[in-house]
């Protein structure tokens, strides 16, 4: 019976073709079922708080090792800062941004920005007033009086205002000088102090053989979380799966970064920040020093990116002292992170 066999074969082929076509047509659904992290979550845009250096070692790992794509994103774009991070996220030019509790709180309180912090990289903020040991030598908040301090326009001004406020210093007693992010005015003696990162400019200046003094914000009345993940209320409400996928990829990336700080520095210097002419020794030191801001006893117990209730309370006290009027639930929403860690407890582990 050659004829019916042939007809059957043709019929089978046709059925297969139709099936294949329908599969293509409704592409999203089957792909979603297949993806490890829950499916096709589209393109991801992440607004960094700074240039692409070792500060983002975990993000570089997450990209290189495919954690973003494993979690379901088709591609990832990392836009370097600094800039108006809150605006870029609130307008959804970026899906997620990295900012800090004070800057974000101020924008939420004053501009009604529909934003929340959904997790944080740095438990302690690395902001400092950097000065030269044989120059301004600013070691206590009172040393600020009568000095010229270089402060970058934007969110950093909010932080500086807060530093003065919590330490009871009249802003009129300190001369705020506009600077960019290059600490040259400090070395040239044009300013006595310079708002900087302990993990960044402070190391850069020291590596030039200059002795420095730091006035860390966290130790002088302004403890708050930094490099915090912010996103919109809409994203949290309508696309919680994207938030969870992003946090998962971030956590996996930072697990890799903490396990191998040297590779994190290399990724920054040779790959992601290749056009920035970064200094390997400095990036390596940054990569190692910032681990102390990321991993605290609380993080060892609860996992990366978590924020304990006590830490939230401490942040709220800081904000109140800085004169920013906001409620904790209007700034932090950690429910998705908690849900994620419950579903995938292996994410709370830290590299040995």
């Amino acid at each position, binding site marked *: 019976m050659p004829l019916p066999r042939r007809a059957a074969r043709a019929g089978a082929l046709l059925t297969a073709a139709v099936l294949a076509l329908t599969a293509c047509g409704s592409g999203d659904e089957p792909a979603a079922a297949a993806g490890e992290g829950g499916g096709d979550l589209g393109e991801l845009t992440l607004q960094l708080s700074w240039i692409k250096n070792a500060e983002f070692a975990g993000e570089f790992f997450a990209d290189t090792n495919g954690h973003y794509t494993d979690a379901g994103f088709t591609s990832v774009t990392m836009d370097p800062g600094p800039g108006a991070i809150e*605006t870029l996220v609130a*307008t959804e030019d970026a899906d997620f941004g990295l900012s800090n509790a004070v800057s974000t709180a101020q924008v939420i309180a004053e501009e009604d920005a529909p934003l929340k912090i959904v997790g944080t990289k740095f438990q302690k903020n690395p902001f400092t007033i950097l000065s030269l040991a044989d120059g301004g030598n600013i070691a206590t908040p009172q040393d600020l009086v009568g000095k010229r301090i270089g402060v970058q326009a*934007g969110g950093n001004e909010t932080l500086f205002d807060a530093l003065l406020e919590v330490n009871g210093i009249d802003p009129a007693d300190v001369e705020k000088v506009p600077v960019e992010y290059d600490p040259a005015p400090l070395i040239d003696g044009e300013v006595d102090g310079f708002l900087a990162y302990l993990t960044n400019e402070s190391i850069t200046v020291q590596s030039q053989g200059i002795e420095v003094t730091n006035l860390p914000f966290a130790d002088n009345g302004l403890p708050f979380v930094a490099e915090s993940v912010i996103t919109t209320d809409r994203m949290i409400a309508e696309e919680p799966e994207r938030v969870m996928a992003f946090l998962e990829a971030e956590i996996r990336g930072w697990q890799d970064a903490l396990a191998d700080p040297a590779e994190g520095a290399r990724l920054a210097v040779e790959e992601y920040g290749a056009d920035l002419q970064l200094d390997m020794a400095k990036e390596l030191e940054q990569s190692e020093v910032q681990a102390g801001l990321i991993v605290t006893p609380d993080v060892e117990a609860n996992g990366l990116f978590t924020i304990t209730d006590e830490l939230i309370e401490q942040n709220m006290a800081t904000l109140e002292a800085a004169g920013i009027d906001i409620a904790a639930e209007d700034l932090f929403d950690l429910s998705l992170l908690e849900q994620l860690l419950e579903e995938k407890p292996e994410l709370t582990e830290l590299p040995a």
Partner: protein
Amino acid sequence: MTAVLPGAGQAPAPGRAGSLLRAVLRQVGTAVLVLAVVVLLWTVLLRVFDVSPYVGKTPAEVWTTLFGEDDSAELRAEIGALLGQTLLDAGVGFVAGLLSAVVLAAVVVRYRLLEGAVMPVALVLQTVPLIALAPILILAVGRGYVLVATMSAIVVLFPALVNIVLGLRSVTPQMRDLVLVYGGSPSTVLRRVGFPSALPALFASVRIAVPGALTGALLAEWLATGKGIGYAVVSAAGRSQNARVWALVVVVTVTALVLYLLAQLVEAAVLSRFGRAEAAR
């Protein structure tokens, strides 16, 4: 801007006050029209480009920010103080820029040899972006008024210089000969004939210099002094205080427009006094 004196100039004029009043009315009419067009474009462009309402504030929202909120009075006082600083900075630059332009123009016209030395330098100052010059200027003169005056003056200088030189050169050979025949020196020619014939050019320069000085002052404030509206805008944008950014920009824009109109009126008044109402257009 050639200073031709047509017969109409001597025709029975409708009176200086009358023509000045007409000039005022015309200017105010123009200003209202310009504002209407700007507000229309502003509204339409926000719509067309679908700008997020968080970033793009409408004219009505800016009005509310400035006048309709609890802390509006506080904000207005704050912006007023910033504007005062900016106007002071712009004023310093305006005076510095125009004075140097007049002096340089006189030198160039009187001593032709120096033209080759002055004009290229002025052109270079005009061509190099101020943002690139700023760090060098800050190192050279610090962050005080000298810097504000320098930066603002650089913006003003070149167009004013070119204009005024042209004006000074518009002296006709007959007029020059007349002064020389009566025993005047080339400097007398410049003083007695050159400057009066350069008046239209001078006032055109003033008109161009007003917004120029403001631009220079805003740049100097942003890059160096950290005071005034120039810095406040950058600072507010960096802090995502978008309503404030818009309010500041609107205030400084309206101020620039008003100052420009004032300059035009002064120009009309002075030129009509010198019998050159036509040149005022």
